[in-house]
């Protein structure tokens, strides 16, 4: 973790393009989530350490989001619209998922091992990627016919 922080600080100072930093920060976020998930499930740790482990992925996500927000300013209007529509698709699907799971839980009492809050994070990420594919197709990004 300390090494990551040192690397992040070094990257911020090196003025590397945001487009280069963004995938790395996304990777750090995903790895910190998986790492925290694994550690909390498999290890018996002191409560203070468990609290830190639950906060680390949120901090990593905040860093990713901040960098993404800055990167948006460098995008052109088509790229911004594509990402905005992808976010709308992801939000709508996420809302439907949470709403449906809530109702199913009342009706059938979901088993914690079958459905859990922790399954939602990768689902929401997948929803955003689905949104990106739909939006890119809409604006002809993937079906290029150019010279």
């Amino acid at each position, binding site marked *: 973790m300390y090494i990551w922080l040192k690397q992040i600080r070094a990257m911020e100072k090196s003025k590397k393009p945001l487009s280069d930093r963004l995938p790395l920060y996304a990777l750090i976020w995903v790895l910190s989530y998986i790492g925290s998930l694994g550690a909390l499930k498999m290890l018996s740790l002191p409560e203070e350490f468990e609290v830190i482990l639950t906060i680390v992925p949120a901090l990593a996500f905040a860093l990713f989001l901040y960098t993404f927000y800055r990167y948006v300013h460098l995008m*052109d*209007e*088509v*790229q911004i*619209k594509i990402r905005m529509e992808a976010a709308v698709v992801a939000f709508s699907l996420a809302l439907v998922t949470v709403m449906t799971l809530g109702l199913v839980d009342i009706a059938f009492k979901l088993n914690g091992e079958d459905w859990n809050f922790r399954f939602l994070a990768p689902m929401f990420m997948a929803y955003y990627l689905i949104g990106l594919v739909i939006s890119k197709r*809409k*604006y*002809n*990004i993937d079906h*290029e*016919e*150019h*010279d």
Partner: protein
Amino acid sequence: MKNTIKVERAKKNWTQAELAEKIGVSRQAINSIEASKFVPSTVLALRMAKEFGASVESIFQLEETDLV
């Protein structure tokens, strides 16, 4: 809304990438605008017209379906 970007590009012998660089957008954006999949902002339309040395109205025209 229809446009004559492809015609104007051909007149200048510019590729999509060259036009994109001149007006500060991605080549994909030009592809999307040229295919009438995306309607550009006023600023971008004006920038494009300036590069072509033409008026915005000569590059972008309303279609029947755009009229109220």
